[in-house]
């Protein structure tokens, strides 16, 4: 393995492993668990937005489908957690395939509207199908994380599971982006027509990325269901889809680290600004607007550029 190419990844894994030693307060660990969960979903959405140039306004629905499927299977049918999680991911993948197939042949707005509509339909079903989903009051008492004989229902247990899975997601995404598919994706982003004429199966690749990002969202949902042990239709609200989009836009569309940086900011910000709770919507809207208009590359790239500019004179001196 070429170590220099993976420097950032290795540094990140070390950081993730040592952070719990710094924060003893369970409140902070809990926030970190949520950052991990949202990072998984945001990284998936980032693949779709940043690399395939498509947008999904219904990602909360996949998150909720993951959470409800896994929650219901483990609670009512005593399916063990890993099996239920796999079934939940498969369910979300099928749903994404069904929604994406007709829409990705078309471009731009259509997928946005179709995912918005599909997300809203799922929200309505979760509220209305009371015998299955518990309706607006949701489902409580979902079994917590457990892997075979190991009970992981502690803050550090949650932290370990969530962040291990995030690191796996990150490595998987990075390998995909470095592969043939990744190169095809990047070519799509610059020009669909040129990519198509060079033999890139445009519609199929977009569909694959869409399904993959839905599976990531479902994985995040599964983790949410089993760490919080309670789910309600709120997980499928449009506002959560928009929060995920905000994470990607803040962090940086088309940058692998964008998802986690955005997730961290969007999760920590409301905790810091809890006095401004009523202004939350306005703040989210303004952040989205300002980021897209003035920093379309996101914070990660901006910081990178700032560092490069600072470092440039030093580098010159050294050479």
């Amino acid at each position: 393995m070429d170590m220099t190419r993976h420097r950032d990844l290795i540094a990140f894994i070390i950081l993730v492993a040592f952070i719990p030693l710094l924060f003893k307060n369970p409140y902070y660990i809990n926030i970190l668990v949520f950052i991990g969960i949202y990072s998984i979903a945001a990284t998936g959405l980032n693949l779709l937005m940043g690399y395939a140039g498509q947008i999904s306004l219904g990602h909360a629905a996949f998150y909720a489908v993951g959470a409800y499927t896994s929650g219901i299977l483990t609670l009512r049918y005593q399916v063990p957690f890993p099996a239920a999680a796999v079934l939940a991911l498969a369910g979300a993948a099928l749903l994404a395939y069904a929604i994406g197939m007709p829409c990705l042949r078309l471009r731009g707005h259509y997928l946005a509207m179709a995912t918005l509509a599909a997300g809203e339909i799922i929200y309505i079903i979760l509220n209305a199908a009371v015998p299955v989903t518990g309706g607006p009051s949701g489902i409580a008492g979902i079994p917590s994380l457990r892997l075979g004989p190991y009970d992981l229902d502690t803050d550090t247990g949650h932290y370990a599971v969530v962040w291990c899975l995030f690191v796996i997601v990150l490595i998987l995404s990075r390998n995909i982006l470095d592969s043939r598919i990744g190169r095809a994706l990047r070519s799509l982003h610059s020009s669909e027509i040129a990519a198509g004429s060079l033999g890139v199966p445009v519609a199929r690749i977009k569909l694959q990325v869409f399904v993959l990002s839905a599976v990531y969202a479902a994985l995040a949902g599964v983790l949410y269901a089993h760490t919080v042990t309670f789910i309600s239709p709120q997980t499928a609200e449009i506002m959560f889809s928009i929060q995920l989009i905000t994470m990607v836009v803040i962090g940086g569309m088309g940058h692998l680290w964008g998802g986690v940086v955005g997730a961290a900011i969007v999760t920590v910000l409301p905790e810091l600004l809890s006095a401004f709770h009523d202004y939350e919507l306005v703040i989210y809207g303004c952040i989205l607007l300002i980021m897209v208009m003035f920093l379309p590359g996101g914070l990660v790239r901006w910081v990178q550029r700032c560092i490069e500019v600072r470092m440039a004179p030093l580098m010159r001196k050294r050479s």
Partner: protein
Amino acid sequence: MSELSQIVQFLCTGVTIGSIYAMVGMGFTMIYNATGIINFAQGEFVMLGGLIMVSLTSSAHIPMPLGFFITVICVMLIGALFERCAIYPLKKPSVLTLIIITLAGSIIAKGVAMLVWGKQTYSLPHFSGDTPLIIAGAAILPQTLWILGILCCVVYGLSLFFNRTMLGKAMRACAVNPIAASLIGINVRYMVLLSFALSAALGAVAGICITPMLLMEFDRGALLGLKGFCAAALGGLGHSGGAVVAGLLIGIFESFGSGYLSSAYKDAIALIVLLAVLLLRPSGLFGSVEQNKLKDF
């Protein structure tokens, strides 16, 4: 209640709500034609129209007709302001950027509405009393007639505007080909501004009309907008008359669906129609398939 009167009743309810979807759908069409943008904030214009009208008439005691005009003008200004602040400064934006920007606009509108009006639900008095007329055994509210009348006026007014006035013709020219339009001296940026203002006005009218029947609160906009988009897509995006017919159709589906099938799933009906249209016939009922392929979408 006899079978016939029940059907008439459902039909009336459907046409009433369908008129609203038709107006919102026309708003989508107007902006789409002028700019190629799907304005995700369209539904918020409806919500703002309803709530501003409530404040003007119930709190400030301005008479209804005057309140109507002031509300429409306020929402028009908001639409124009949004275009100037968020759309105008962009240079060669991608579809993704535009979606995110209009989405951000809709969240800001919703957030500000929540700060101004709070989370409670507001109502407006019906335009001319709420004693229902009995027609074929069905109770029809006068408001239904008002809404239908206003929809007719709006459609007629817009067709006059687009076919008889220089400004309307210039807007149509922009819809056909913005570059050619700018070559013959049409100010395309101004037309974009105008399309946002007009479509905001349409949303406001829809909001004022429907508030007496459905009530209004700060987070109603998104769903109304989405259903309006269903109308625009079913009618063939960019086809104004199509949006009106499709809006009425969707309203009627919804009303019969909630009557005969299940009222809990009422809101899902329009959305299922939208998914079906996207799946089976993305050019809609009235759009041509060839033209749809050429659209910059």
